[in-house]
């Protein structure tokens, strides 16, 4: 048996005095997992702000973030499954859930949430399904007829689009979006609980963990929705520019109209982002100050990790680059798209670093409190272990939601249509 065979030994470097069995067992996939569930929760909350609290300014964003949340939700378990050493047994969590474990609730919470989001998507898109299923086309291709059949199935036989039916649909959406908020918060708060309840880990164990996780989740979800929205709008703008040149498709919105709508929506949404950013930052700083002030037994080693070994990761990458700079960028007057993109990328990076600093940072010191461990992320994989727990594995799970969104968006078109004011028939 070679040394290589020990799981996690490959990417762990041990310093000073550590127990023999200590390694960075939870690596990059466990960083990706809360990042993804966080994005799910954030995207859903953003869509619910319109449906439940009637934030009219978010109307265009609501549909888009709902479908995006759905794509993220389907992708969310992938890092967990990749992380398991016996992935084929992952299903056992449903067979014999051991309810004293925080992870055992995953199946229940996840599926509850899945049902809520799927149902809400159905109600939101029902008129569209009916429209697609009943539309008569002069010449129908095979693919077209297949598509129509799919929408026929998706309507589930509910073709009534009368005012009364639509009113009831609205009510159902409102209720689902409302119920979805606490469930989304629970799904993610419980991801925080998975860490916060590990009493063996000095850095993780704090009752603030679930709340911090929820707030940073909303920040990341809102930021990602905004960013994806900008990317799609930029694409549309490019298409509009090209269309103008070819004098084709006159009913499409012009470049200027698209630009105006885009800036307007981004400015409105960024206000919510700033609000949640402030809450998330406040909670994290509270945790830090409290640990330093109470300075219990483990503070000595935590201090060395936070202010010493991980200083760069925590204060420079997470707080400065990921929080303070984008905060300033968003707060400065006359927000432009370019500035927003910079800020949003940094915000998402900041949340990623926060997850990284929790998951990896929490394992960067030994249980002996006399030693340290360093995670060296495998960049070029040479076996399955170094692929899934390395950079490529992270890119796989990080890219999956976008791929799923591309597919889902073809069935549930969610990108806001901006049509020109004067319609030519």
């Amino acid at each position, binding site marked *: 048996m070679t040394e290589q065979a020990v799981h996690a030994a490959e990417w762990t470097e041990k310093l000073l005095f550590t127990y023999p069995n200590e390694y960075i067992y939870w690596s990059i996939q466990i960083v990706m997992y809360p990042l993804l569930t966080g994005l799910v929760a954030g995207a859903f909350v953003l869509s619910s702000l319109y449906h439940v609290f009637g934030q009219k300014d978010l109307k265009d964003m609501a549909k888009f973030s709902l479908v995006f949340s759905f794509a993220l939700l389907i992708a969310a378990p992938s890092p967990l499954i990749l992380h398991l050493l016996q992935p084929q047994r992952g299903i056992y969590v449903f067979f014999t*859930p051991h309810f004293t474990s925080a992870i055992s609730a995953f199946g229940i919470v996840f599926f509850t949430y899945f049902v809520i989001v799927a149902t809400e998507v159905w109600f939101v898109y029902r008129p569209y399904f009916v429209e697609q299923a009943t539309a008569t086309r002069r010449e129908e291709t095979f693919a077209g007829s297949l598509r129509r059949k799919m929408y026929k199935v998706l309507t589930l036989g509910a073709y009534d689009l009368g005012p009364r039916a639509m009113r009831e649909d609205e009510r159902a959406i409102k209720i689902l979006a409302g119920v979805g908020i606490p469930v989304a918060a629970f799904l993610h708060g419980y991801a925080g609980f998975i860490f916060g309840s590990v009493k063996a880990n000095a850095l993780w164990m704090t009752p603030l963990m679930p709340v911090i996780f929820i707030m940073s989740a909303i920040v990341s979800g809102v930021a990602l929705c905004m960013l994806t929205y900008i990317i799609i709008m930029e694409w549309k703008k490019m298409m509009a520019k090209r269309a103008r040149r070819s004098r084709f498709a006159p009913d499409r919105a012009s470049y200027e109209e698209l630009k105006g709508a885009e800036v307007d929506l981004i400015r409105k949404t960024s206000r919510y982002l700033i609000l949640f950013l402030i809450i998330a930052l406040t909670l994290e700083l509270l945790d830090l100050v409290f640990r330093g002030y109470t300075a219990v037994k483990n503070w000595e080693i935590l201090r060395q990790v936070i202010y010493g070994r991980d200083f760069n990761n925590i204060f420079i990458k997470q707080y400065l680059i990921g929080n303070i700079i984008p905060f300033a960028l968003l707060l400065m007057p006359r927000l432009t798209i370019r500035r927003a993109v910079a800020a949003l990328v940094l915000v998402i990076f900041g949340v990623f670093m926060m997850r990284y600093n929790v998951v990896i940072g929490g394992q960067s010191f030994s*249980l002996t409190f006399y030693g340290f461990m360093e995670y060296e992320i495998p960049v070029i994989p040479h076996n399955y272990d170094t692929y899934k727990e390395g950079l490529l594995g992270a890119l796989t799970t990080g890219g999956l939601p976008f791929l799923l969104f591309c597919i889902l968006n073809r069935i549930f078109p969610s990108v806001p249509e901006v049509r020109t004011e004067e319609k030519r028939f």
Partner: protein
Amino acid sequence: MGPNRRELNRRDFLKLSAKAAAGAGLLGAFRVLAPGEARAIAQTPNLRWIFLVDTYKCVGCGMCVRACKLENETPYDAPVTRTWVERYVVLKDGTLLADSPLGARDGFKDPRTMGRDVRPEDIKKAFFVPKLCNQCDKPPCIQVCPVGATYKSWDGIALVDRKWCIGCGYCIMGCPYGVRFFHPVHNVAEKCNFCYHRIHKGLKPACEYACPFGARHVGNLKDPNDPVTKIIFTERVSVLKDEYGTKPVVYYLGLDEVVR
């Protein structure tokens, strides 16, 4: 359908009832204990495995680690182990040096601790501490297992079901003593179980059996005449990291405050 047929039916019915009653009675004899009953029995067993480590007797030879690795088929060269020995050196200037190279599988051949040359006259105190699973009364590893693949036996040993463990590593994270690891061959959680297969046959655990100096002893807390239990009841013993509330049952003689 005549009255005769009905008569027959009644007789059949009675016969069947009698058979069913007999069957039920027979089943009752082999009946599986209801969870409540099982719990009641488990709460008052006459066996609770415990362990005593006399650190004064340990010389850090590593025989216990070698024996454990061979007995429990932990790959010999893999840098993971069910039991290990730590060396602590406290210098006169207050510096603490500690290490456990390869879990002390080969003992401590290098006099340097943490790569540092230490002159004997600079040493305030130095000693060895063997480590193994604490078989906690309130085991956090079992609490956090999402599928119940790790569980406590009726006599107090935390065991792992290799056929059910999903390999999430939550138990490894949950253990404050760093006792658990992933088995390099089976790819599931692995830990010390006091050599459960041996102690139930009246044999000593491999580490105790291999220790030339009698530093390790398994015992039964429920037996007041057990020599280990007697020592724990009469001498001043301590446990590791009691601040986590896990209630460990590996008792130590001669534990120092620097030991983690």
